[in-house]
């Protein structure tokens, strides 16, 4: 029987504590290893989702819309109007999906977080490692979306490339606060509520499918408050070439503030949940 220790116990080398970045990267590597099991399935939906939506609504419904309402859309095809909005909305969907059950399950089901917190990783590193992973997933899905939109002929401006980081930021404005909340849950029933009463209404009424000027006047301010509307309108302005600096500052600023607030909340919620 071989010794399990290569050195005398109690003589472990002592170095400075690793930085937060290095510790977060260790948790990110866990998620990447984990993702190797499921990436194929997720790629199918990353491609299929934009193909189905752009095909059915962008092209199918768009044919009807183009016969009547092109003026309301700023004189562009419905497909070119829809694609950038859908890019932001798809980012939201990815973000909500990645920040609900995976976070909850890591505490309640496979206890990945409890395992990690016994290592040098702190709750804050565990949180940031997952946020980094979600950021990569968003970048991946948004890039695939852009490629599909280009294949459909929905891209009107080279600025549409800049819509990818904007959509990623839109996703993060959802991911960080929802992760902060999801880690505190003790039952998983609230997640279906999030999907039904939060994500789907936002998806439908944040200007993704029609300009929010079509909404009743009293409802419009609600849309302005949602991160999704800022993401949708900036992505759209980039594709249609109508973005100006003021809008970029306001929309990016708003999304960044929401994402940062979620990050602060998550730092606290993860610590309270994992350090009891």
């Amino acid at each position, binding site marked *: *029987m*071989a*010794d*399990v*220790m*290569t*050195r*005398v*116990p*109690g003589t*472990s080398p*002592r170095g400075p*504590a*690793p930085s937060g970045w*290095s*510790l977060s990267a*260790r*948790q990110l*590597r*866990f998620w990447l*290893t*984990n993702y190797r*099991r499921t990436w194929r399935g997720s790629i199918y939906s990353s491609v299929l989702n934009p193909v189905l939506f752009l095909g059915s609504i962008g092209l199918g419904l768009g044919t009807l819309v183009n016969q009547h309402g092109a003026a309301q859309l700023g004189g562009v095809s419905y497909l070119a109007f829809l694609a950038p909005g859908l890019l932001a909305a798809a980012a939201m969907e990815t973000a909500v999906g990645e920040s609900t059950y995976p976070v909850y399950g890591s505490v309640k089901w*496979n*206890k*990945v977080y*409890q*395992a*990690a*917190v*016994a*290592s*040098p*990783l*702190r709750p804050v590193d565990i949180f940031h490692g997952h946020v980094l992973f979600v950021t990569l997933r968003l970048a991946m899905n948004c890039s695939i979306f852009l490629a599909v939109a280009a294949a459909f002929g929905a891209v009107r401006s080279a600025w549409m490339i800049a819509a990818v980081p904007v959509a990623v930021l839109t996703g993060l404005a959802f991911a960080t606060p929802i992760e902060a909340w999801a880690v505190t849950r003790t039952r998983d029933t609230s997640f279906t509520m999030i999907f039904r009463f939060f994500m789907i209404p936002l998806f439908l009424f944040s200007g993704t499918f029609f300009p929010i000027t079509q909404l009743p006047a009293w409802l419009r301010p609600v849309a302005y408050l949602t991160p999704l509307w800022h993401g949708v309108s900036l992505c759209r302005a980039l594709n249609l070439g109508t973005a100006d600096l003021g809008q970029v500052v306001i929309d990016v600023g708003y999304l960044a503030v929401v994402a940062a607030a979620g990050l602060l909340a998550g730092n606290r919620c993860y610590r309270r949940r*994992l*350090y*009891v």
Partner: protein
Amino acid sequence: MSAVPPLIRARGLVKRFGSFTAVDGIDFDLQRGEAFGFLGPNGAGKSSTMRMIGCVSPPSAGELSILGLDPVRDGREIRARLGVVPQDDTLDVELTVRENLLIYGRYFGLPRDVIRERTARLLEFVQLSDRADDQVDPLSGGMKRRLTIARSLINEPDILLLDEPTTGLDPQARHAVWDRLFRLKQQGVTLVLTTHYMDEAEQLCDRLVVMDAGKIAAGGTPRELIERYSTPEVLELRFDPADHQQAAEKLASVPAQRLEVLADRVLLYVEDGDSALLAARALGVEPLASLVRRGTLEDVFLRLTGRQLGE
């Protein structure tokens, strides 16, 4: 005592959850190379103590120093040098045995080749080499436990923390785990374990403390505790429930250090069990069953708390 500073030192350590006090001012020292146990029933505060030592639960009051460091300020450095076997398995059941060790080794920032080399050695140690590339999910409870032990050793820890290491395992699997832990002890690994099994504590611990309701009731080596709080032999007698009380009254005149009347048995604490049994029979006591055994930590616990460990 020893001039070497202890690996863990606790003074007046307290853990509160709201108005509930789980750990109520405990003192202990852990020396390098020893196997130290917290013995007590469920809810005694053992796991809360372990979580504080594991730097995942800030103490509510008192002093705690681990490897000479402060668990709140230096949690990262301390945890880098601990191995933890939690009460509930936290293995990733969808990954393979090998991947679990890989992931965990990375948490400690170990290079891939170091992890690979240690994985081979550790899986051999816990007798799971032939399952290295199998998923964890179908493994038996005992195998998962052994894998968790292997995982906890990936960073070659200075202290190994084991919270109820064999709870929920069948006797055979328990013995397999004990055997591995015993070998670790022989290799000089410092062990801290909690248990509510007195046989586990007796087999593995050089020194232990008996915990009850958040406090330390007594401490010492298993032998010292048994000598101090029990007798060399114990005579256990069982009766028909209807005769139980009457028999207990008769037994009061058998010369014994102490008499315990439990719900299902009467225990006589004596120097010599066989002669006590003869004395009982001479008084006309006819038990359904009798057993002479040596004193154990179970008896120590009963003496200290008035309750049985399993209760």
